[in-house]
Every structure is written in structure tokens, then in C-alpha cells.
């Protein structure tokens, strides 16, 4: 049923030199009159050149907010409260308006969540390409249109479609148009926020396949945000799991699949059937994600954690009172969990 992607999960990640992007202790808050919600709470993450990093978690865990914060397109009332977002060592949070404008898309581009709404419905596809190119470089309209045509062909769309309006394209085509747009200025990092969620499975596979091929040919890095962990295990080199605004586990895809250490990751893995082999009982995770305005004390996962047994034990006291920190359990494999720390 499923079309296998060309990459095998175990494929070696590119040798990490200096990261393209480093997120350091980032905190994003949504402030309303009565309360402040921390959607991203102290997240650190680095992405190496040419690396595909997956970011997974339930809806509302802050993964899209993290993507938007890196792109610096947070909408009020969301704002970066503290922390840094470094692009080749330069802090994007401190950039002035015009510096930031020049940085966007040229260095980091983004494929938005909904293909349906990310294109301006009243402009032709060509105009949306031209607008973007001419905001960054001096190029004649003719040349810009020419390049836009090449980009469309790169993602398998007839260049005559440049004259189309978004509503004249199918959902899959629109998403390809956006991908073509994201690659137009040859950025070093492309953030993809649930790029295929709204599409049907076959189209989804085709597009992912294409993303993988383009990524290998052109060597850009990808931050792929999705709730679909199974997809990431196939696509990404490295996967970060987010829960309630925090990253709870980071590991190479293969390590995560075979040796997930955090009970939440284990829960996520058991909530979808294996692609091959017999279907076992799916256990899933009981309960629902916490309210980020009043997160649970200690480990945020403890109210749902199957290993958190109430009782007068030292472990339980730590689980409800102390925030676990990420610790390396194997090369490149980090987990934030009291159980792991206690060696259980």
C-alpha cells in the first residue's frame, strides 16, 4: 500500500560541521490580559547543513510555534520572551526589521501548513514568484518569470501553470508550487510545517519523495514539523520529540525507532501500526495534553506517564517536583526523563 521512500531510515546523517541553525533556550509566550501561556519553554536544538531534522508531537505541543519562531513570523500575542535563534552564529532575534526581511527566504524559507491558504488567492502564481524574487535581488520581471518556470518544472508542474490563479490548482499542485517557491533563492534551511497533512495519502507520498530527492540534489537542511512520527522515521535523519513546550527526546531516526527511552516517545510509537509485520495491539497514550497556561509540576508528562506510580518513593517525589533535563544516553541520543536518570 505504501510507497517506500528512497531513503532508508538508517542512512547516515551528513557529518556535522558547524550547525546552520541553533536554537538556544528559546521561550515563546502567548500573553493575554489574564494569563501567559508558554507554548515553547526552554527549547534547544541544532540543525547541521544538509540534515533533515524531524520535530514531532501532539497538536498544541508548541511544534508549529517553534517553527514560526525560527522563521520569525510569530503573530501577536505570541512573542519570543527569551533565548536565541542563531543562523551561522548570528542571533536572528536581534536583527532589525530590514536585516530580518533580507534574511528571510534567502537564508531560511518555509513551507506553510495549509497549501490551501498560503497562496494569495487574487494573484497569479507567477506574480507571487516575481514578488518574492524582486524583494531580494535586482532582477527583471522577465528573468524572474523565466526562473519561476524552471522551478515549477523542477517540482513537476508545467510552466504554463504560472499564469494560473491558486484556485485553479489542485491541493497537491499548490503545495508543490510553495515548495518550488521555498527553494527559489536556494536557502540553506527549509522549515516544513505539516506540509502534507491536508493532502491524500498518494499525493502525500509523491511530494515527500520529491522533497527527499530535491534535498539530496541540492543539499539544503530541513526542519520537518509533523504530528506523524511514522513519517519522520522514514524521512528524517534525526528526530526531536516535543511535549508540552519542551523537547523530551532527540535521537537519530533509527535509534529512536528501535530504542525509544522516553515513555512519551514509546507511547507515540505504539499509537500507530508498524508498516510491516503483524498488527499488534495499539496502546496509545491515555489522557490529553496539559494546559500550557498551567503546566503540571515536575516532569510535565507525569500525569499521563505509565511509570509514574503515586507513592512515597524518591522517584515519585522527583517526578512531581523536579523538571528533568536532557541527558545523553547514547551518542547523539538525548532524553529528559527521571527514569533514565535513575537508570531504570
Amino acid at each position, binding site marked *: 500500500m505504501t510507497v517506500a521512500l528512497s531513503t532508508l531510515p538508517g542512512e547516515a546523517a551528513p557529518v556535522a560541521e558547524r550547525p546552520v541553525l541553533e536554537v538556544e533556550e528559546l521561550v515563546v509566550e502567548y500573553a493575554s490580559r489574564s494569563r501567559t501561556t508558554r507554548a515553547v519553554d526552554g527549547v534547544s536544538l541544532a540543525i547541521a547543513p544538509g540534515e533533515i531534522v524531524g520535530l514531532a508531537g501532539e497538536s498544541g505541543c508548541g511544534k508549529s510555534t517553534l517553527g514560526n519562531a525560527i*522563521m520569525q*513570523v510569530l503573530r501577536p500575542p505570541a512573542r519570543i520572551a527569551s533565548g536565541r535563534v542563531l543562523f551561522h552564529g548570528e542571533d536572528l532575534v536581534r536583527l532589525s*526589521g530590514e536585516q530580518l*526581511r533580507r534574511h528571510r527566504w534567502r537564508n531560511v524559507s518555509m513551507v506553510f501548513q495549509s497549501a490551501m*491558504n*498560503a497562496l494569495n488567492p*487574487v494573484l497569479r502564481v507567477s506574480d507571487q514568484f516575481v*514578488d518574492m524574487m524582486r524583494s531580494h535581488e535586482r532582477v527583471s520581471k522577465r528573468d524572474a518569470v523565466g526562473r519561476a518556470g524552471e522551478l515549477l518544472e523542477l517540482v513537476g508542474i508545467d510552466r504554463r501553470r504560472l499564469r494560473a490563479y491558486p484556485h485553479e490548482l489542485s491541493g497537491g499542485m499548490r503545495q508543490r508550487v510553495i515548495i518550488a*517557491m521555498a527553494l527559489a533563492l536556494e536557502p540553506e534551511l527549509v522549515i516544513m510545517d505539516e506540509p502534507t497533512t491536508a493532502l491524500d495519502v498518494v499525493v502525500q507520498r509523491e511530494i515527500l519523495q520529491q522533497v527527499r530527492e530535491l534535498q539530496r540534489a541540492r543539499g539544503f537542511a530541513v526542519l520537518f514539523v509533523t504530528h506523524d512520527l511514522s513519517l519522520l522515521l522514514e524521512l528524517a535523519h534525526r528526530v526531536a520529540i516535543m511535549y508540552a513546550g519542551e523537547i523530551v527526546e532527540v535521537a537519530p531516526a533509527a535509534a529512536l525507532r528501535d530504542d525509544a527511552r522516553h515513555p512519551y516517545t514509546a507511547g507515540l510509537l505504539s499509537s500507530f501500526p508498524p508498516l510491516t509485520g503483524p498488527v499488534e495491539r495499539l496502546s496509545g497514550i491515555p489522557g490529553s495534553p496539559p494546559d500550557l497556561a498551567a503546566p503540571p509540576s515536575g516532569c510535565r508528562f507525569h500525569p499521563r506517564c505509565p511509570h509514574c506510580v503515586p507513592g512515597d518513593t524518591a522517584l515519585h517525589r522527583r517526578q512531581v517536583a523536579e523538571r528533568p533535563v536532557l541527558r545523553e544516553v547514547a551518542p547523539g541520543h538525548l532524553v529528559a526523563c527521571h527514569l533514565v536518570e535513575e537508570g531504570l
Partner: protein
Amino acid sequence: MRFFARRLAFYAFAVWVALTLNFLLPRLMPGSPIGGVLQRLSPSQIQANPGIIKTYQALLGGGSGSIWHDYVVYLHRLAHLDFGVSTSNYPSHVSAVIGRVLPYSIFLVGVAFILSFVLGTAIGMVAAWRRGGGFDSVIVPVFMALSAFPAFFTGLVAVYVLGLKLHWFPIQHAYDSGLVPGFNWAFLTSALRHSELPILVIVAAYAGGWVLNMRTVMINTVGEDYVAMAHAKGLRDRRVMTRYAARNAILPPLNGFAAQFAGAVGGLVFIEYVFSYPGAGLTLQQAALGNDYPLTQALLLVFALCVIAANFVMDLLNVLLDPRVRTG
């Protein structure tokens, strides 16, 4: 094209309804309007125009023929633009009276309406873009307050304060007395000068509606993904505001274009009355008071045709600005 065919059919029907309403109104009313007309004509006038009574019977009823016969004659008259003689402007023909006063109104309402549209949507756009900013919290309430005032009251206050006390504007009529209307400098400058205050009042009364509409829609549009993506693409702020947010936000308010115009045309009657501005609105008021039914009837038709024309312009703009209407 199907879209246009459908719209044109609708307008044709609307014109027919307006014509028929015009025909039926005097016949539905208690009493005979033709009596009012004949009272105002002296016997010598009737004698000089032997056909005059027949014309009025066709236009207003009161003849001996069947209503269907009257209706056919009525339509026949209108096809020849024969609305009869205006009793309050005897012996001028109704069509001549309208030809004389209509240009003033078209100028007044045309300029004022376009100004309030441009100004109102621009203010609404910027207010929504910088929501909660100084502009949004000062200029917008001022326009809202102004538009809450009945137009004629704003007009009276403006005449008193800006005209009578401050002497900034002439306050009466369309041009200085003593000038003869024509294409000469003295007349045109005088006419322009006299139109300033009425235009200002119309803008004050109607821009607020556009401000509110545009602001409301634009606030929602600013939250759309394509605006976020335009930002992410590194476009300049102003370009995102105009070409991405405002360009889409303008579409829903534009659908109120015709209704707003109908409102402005109605308001014109009051404004012209306040300023004694000799346009179609003042003429309608005078004709209504003077029981000059042929003139009121013809003017109502003219007003309806103007609003229908505005509807058509709205359709054109919609097709021009929204590709989804074109193909959908």
C-alpha cells in the same frame, strides 16, 4: 460571461420593476394625483397644450381607459423620454429640467462617493494593519462618531460653523449669483468652490462605513496564511499590506458598494436641501412639496437607474479584482 448575462438579466428586470412601480404608485394611492397636477395648470396652459391631459393620464392614471391600456401608453411615452411638462417649472419639459439639474448631482455624489470610498478603505486598511496603534485608536473613533450623525445634521452644523461663523466656505447654491452656467473659468471655479462643503459633509457622513467595513475584514485577513507567508518571503511591509492583505480585504466591503451608493444617493436629497444646491435631490424635494408628480416620477426613475448602474459597476469591479468570480 454567463455571470454577466445573469446580472444583465437581473438589471433589466430591476429596471422593469422600477418602471412599473412608478406606474403603479400614483394609482395605488388614495385620491387622484392628476387632480393635483391639473390644479397647478391654468386653463390657458391646458389650452396651449391640447395633449397635456392625455400625457398625464398615461403617466399618473385618472383616464377612462383600462389600466393595461394606460400601461402600454405609459411605456410608449417613456421609450420616447416623454415625461410630460413639469408643472412647477412650466413650461419646461421634465426631461429638460432633469438635464439641467442632474450634472450637479452627478458631480457632487460622484466625487464625494469616490473620495469617501478611497479615504475610508485606506484608513480602515492602515488602522487594521497597526491595530491598537495611535492611528487606530484616534482616527477610527472620530470617523465612527461622524458617521453616527445624520448627514443633514452634520450639514447644518457645518453650514453654521464652517460657513457662517468661520467663513471658510460658501454655504448656499452651486455657484455665485450673477454667473451664467457654462464652460468658462469664472463659473467652473465658483462651482468647485461651492461644492467643497457639501462634498466634505458627504465624505464625513459616509467614509465611516467604509472605515469600519474595511478594518473588520482586514483584521481577519491579516491573520491569513498567505499574509504570514508574504512576510516570510521577505517582502517589504508596505507591499504585504497592500498587495496581500488589503487586496483581499477589499473584496467583501466592495460587495456593499451598491448599497452604500444607494444610501449616498438618498443622503443627497438632504444635503442638497441643506445647501440649497440645485441638483436632482433638491429638485425632487421641491417637486414633492409642489405636487409636481411628473417630475417626481421621472426623478425617482433616474435615481433608480443610477443605483442600478452602480450595481453594474460593482459587478465589473468584482470581476476585475477577484479571479475566483471570473472562473467560478
